[in-house]
């Protein structure tokens, strides 16, 4: 469960691939309860991340910083500062640990701090909040990821664009929860990470 520059890079490349493959689906999720751009936002961001990572980062902290900056400067929507802060907090945390679970814990705190959302507000926080403990326990599975993403469907949004719809945000999967689901799925699929 110790992260290295190489496993971080593999993780990101796998995540970028999923984002690329599902960009239209993510934007479609964002259409009824948002502005229909989440997939395109994330694709722009992860393409930039992949390009940056072609130059091998000198260390883990540098790797996380590079990822954060690429996301912050290319995404444009709310997911930019949110994922950006997540990776920035992981960069900071590498000063004291390279343990994946602890790093993800720091990332989740960063997302909560940046967006002010709490669990149940129908944002990516819900997925992170459900799955970070599973990573730490070594109990993450695809079923748990799917369930965490699916759980956003019945929630009423309290943060982000979907919150303008109040009750009407119910019945739709939150796009940021879905993209976060892919991030955790990439953890499962990347050799030597869990």
């Amino acid at each position, binding site marked *: 469960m110790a992260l290295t520059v190489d496993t971080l890079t593999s993780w990101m490349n796998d995540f970028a691939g999923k984002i690329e493959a599902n960009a239209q689906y993510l934007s479609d999720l964002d259409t*009824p309860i*948002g*502005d*229909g*751009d989440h997939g395109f936002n994330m694709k722009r961001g992860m393409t930039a991340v992949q390009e940056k990572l072609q130059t091998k980062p000198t260390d883990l902290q540098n790797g996380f910083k590079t990822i954060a900056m690429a996301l912050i400067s290319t995404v444009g929507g709310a997911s930019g500062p949110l994922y950006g802060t997540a990776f920035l907090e992981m960069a900071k945390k590498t000063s004291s640990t390279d343990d994946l679970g602890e790093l993800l814990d720091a990332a989740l705190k960063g997302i909560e701090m940046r967006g002010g959302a709490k669990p149940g507000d129908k944002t990516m926080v819900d997925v992170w909040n459900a799955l970070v403990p599973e990573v730490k326990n070594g109990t993450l599975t695809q079923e748990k990821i799917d369930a965490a993403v699916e759980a956003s469907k019945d929630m009423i949004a309290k943060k982000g*664009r979907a919150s*303008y*719809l*109040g009750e*009407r945000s119910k019945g739709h999967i939150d796009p940021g929860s879905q993209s976060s689901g892919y991030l955790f799925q990439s953890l499962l699929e990347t050799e030597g990470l869990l």
Partner: protein
Amino acid sequence: MSLGITLVSHVPEIANGLPKLLDQVAGDVSITTAGGTDDGRIGTSMEKIMNAFSENGADEILAFYDLGSAKMNLEMAIEMSDKKVHLYDTAFIEGAYTAASLIQAGVGLDEIETQLKPLTIKN
């Protein structure tokens, strides 16, 4: 019965720019605007507002404005227009964004007005 939006701003650029924000979340909602005076200065124009009402594809219009004098021209235009127009003293951009999102989602006028109420900041 369909709901549309009319935006009245003192500044032509704001009137032209705001629909770009709303179209992202309300592509099917008819949004018309009146920005600046007849000769393009900072201010508002009753005639431009009446045109924005009549160009609007909806049966009923929710109208939003930036500063007080726009409201006066809006009220005159409403008195002279045949269309049913509802005028809101909400935060301009935030109120219009909320209304656009809810109209797109098929929410009715009553519920929209309930959600607009906390955004009321003018009198």
